[in-house]
């Protein structure tokens, strides 16, 4: 009954085009092996190695970008991997996040029993999973990338063995993440049943040819529903957000920064690939669901952030509200899904992901430094009077918070303006207005942290510990990026506009 294959012809593999992924893979494996065979490296070496691999990945992705600009988008490895600027933009986003997080982790791990190559190797595996998700042109490849990212993040979340909170974060993330993965996989299976393929290009062709004839609609719609549940968990959209605050709070702070940046970017990349690129023929069915997810994420994320008193938790809820803004962009992209003129939704989404990644890592970097002084405490009290003790650090945090609030002349304004503009372009006025109102509500929580930093009195006996060089470097780079992009956004907007020419 099944087709018999007599001779197997392997697909052609374009090694250079795959080099960003291979660099990350090679970095992770070699660090794991060499690290296991050698005694503990001196301070900073693991982080430097990881940052070097991440920079190499980003630079190679830029080379691929030139090739794509010249030769147009294509697919690799027998159609399993997409080779387009969307993949490369997100590869660069994830490697930027990896560089900053590696710098931030260096000092955080010093002197703890977790010091060693494992955490960095796991970062690289997670980043590789994210890159695979962003470049997948086949649902099974996308699932493998998703699991690579998720499994590494489960371990990272639980990696602080001395802390009960970290273990709790790990198990919660694992159980709910596994739940989401199962939904996602079942969705893939049902969509496979409806279209007869898991390959995105073949899927588009199959749906295109079956528009007039009967096709099992129920299977496809049920599959899309399950896919949205799985993706909703991964991007932490309300009502699938319950894990996010607990995991963000319990996980070691650099890991939280990585989850909120690279993890979110990869999950939204998967959402674009699965819904906007692969299933445009059902866009009228799934667009309302995205609309509702965006609305709930915006409202719940920004209002619940205000009532928290732990800064990591506040940033977790604020990341849920940011997910809502990105979903506004996805909703805008949905209006033009599958059309030759893809509109401004997708560029706005990838732009938001890059800018938000840098912002959120910067914010968590400041939290990590404050935690060093307070002995691990990330409550609002630990930030009291930070401006008096540490004016520069407080200033950096202020820049990040203002940017997250979307104040002009910061990168956050460009990001928020982009998604709202995209929604207005597609005449989604209702969600655009809600997003603007929520931006004001969300600003309240950032103001709350700022007021505590600048106007509060430092607690008695609070001490100042010098800011570690690597973490300081990460914060300075993030501040410069935030301000430079806020003032000169043109070059990035031009780059993000090319992602609409994706491989299909």
């Amino acid at each position, binding site marked *: 009954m099944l087709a018999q294959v007599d001779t197997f012809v392997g697909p052609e593999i374009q090694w250079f085009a795959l080099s960003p992924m291979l660099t990350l893979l090679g970095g992770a494996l070699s660090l794991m092996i060499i690290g296991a065979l050698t005694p503990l490296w001196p301070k900073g070496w693991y982080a430097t190695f990881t940052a070097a691999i991440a920079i190499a990945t980003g630079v190679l992705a830029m080379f691929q970008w030139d090739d794509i600009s010249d030769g147009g988008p294509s697919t690799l490895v027998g159609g399993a991997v997409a080779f387009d600027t969307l993949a490369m933009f997100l590869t660069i986003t994830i490697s930027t996040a990896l560089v900053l997080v590696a710098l931030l982790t260096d000092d955080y791990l010093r002197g703890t029993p977790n010091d060693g190559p494992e955490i960095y190797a796991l970062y690289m595996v997670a980043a590789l999973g994210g890159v695979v998700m962003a470049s997948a042109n086949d649902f099974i490849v996308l699932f*493998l990338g998703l699991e690579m990212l998720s499994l590494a993040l*489960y371990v990272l979340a639980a990696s602080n063995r001395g802390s009960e909170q970290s273990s709790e974060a*790990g198990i919660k993330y694992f159980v709910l993440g596994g739940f989401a993965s*199962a*939904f996602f*996989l079942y969705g893939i299976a049902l969509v496979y*049943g409806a279209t007869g393929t898991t390959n995105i290009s073949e899927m588009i062709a199959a749906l295109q040819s079956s528009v007039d004839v009967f096709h099992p609609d129920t299977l496809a719609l049920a599959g899309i529903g399950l896919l949205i549940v799985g993706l909703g968990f991964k991007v932490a959209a309300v009502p699938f957000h319950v894990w996010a605050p607990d995991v963000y709070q319990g996980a070691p702070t650099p890991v939280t920064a990585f989850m909120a940046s690279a993890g979110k970017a990869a999950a939204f990349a998967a959402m674009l690939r699965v819904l906007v690129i692969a299933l445009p023929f059902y866009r009228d069915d799934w667009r309302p669901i995205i609309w509702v997810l965006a609305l709930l994420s915006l409202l719940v994320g920004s209002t619940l952030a205000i009532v928290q008193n732990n800064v990591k938790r506040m940033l977790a809820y604020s990341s849920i509200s940011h997910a809502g803004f990105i979903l506004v962009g996805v909703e805008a992209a949905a209006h033009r899904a599958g059309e030759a003129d893809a509109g401004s939704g997708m560029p706005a989404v990838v732009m938001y992901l890059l800018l938000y990644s840098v912002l959120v890592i910067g914010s968590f970097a400041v939290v990590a430094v404050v935690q060093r002084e307070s002995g691990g405490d990330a409550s609002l009290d630990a930030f009291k009077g930070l401006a008096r003790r540490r004016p520069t650090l407080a200033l950096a945090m202020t820049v990040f918070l203002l940017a997250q609030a979307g104040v002009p002349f910061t990168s956050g304004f460009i990001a928020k303006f982009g998604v709202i503009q995209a929604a207005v372009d597609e005449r989604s006025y209702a969600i655009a207005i809600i997003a603007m109102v929520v931006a004001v509500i969300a600003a309240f929580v950032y103001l709350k942290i700022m007021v505590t930093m600048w106007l509060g009195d430092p607690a008695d006996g609070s001490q100042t510990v010098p800011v570690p060089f690597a973490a300081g470097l990460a914060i300075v780079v993030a501040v410069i990026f935030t301000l430079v992009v806020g003032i000169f956004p043109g070059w990035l907007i031009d780059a993000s506009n090319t992602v609409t020419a994706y491989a299909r």
Partner: protein
Amino acid sequence: MIAAIEPTWYLVLASVLFGIGAFGLLVRRNPLIMFMCIELMLNAANLTFVALAVQLGDINGQTAVFFVLVVAAAEVVVGLGIIVSILRRTPGTTADDLAELKG
């Protein structure tokens, strides 16, 4: 002679298994049982893949199952590691005891 079972029934069976897994995950409080429920859900998806591959006469659905098996095995390693690290600290922990993080 026994008539061949319609592939549709495999899809029904798979959806029932998936439902049992999802329901079990939500109501059971033992981390190990919750973990087994996730495996049940993954295997329901596998059964769907195989049944649909037979129905469509397409080999790709069956190869997908091998990838999923590998992923499930990797998930066992990670999941059991995390569960053991928690149970070693506090034996007999249930999901309700893990409530240090809230707000």
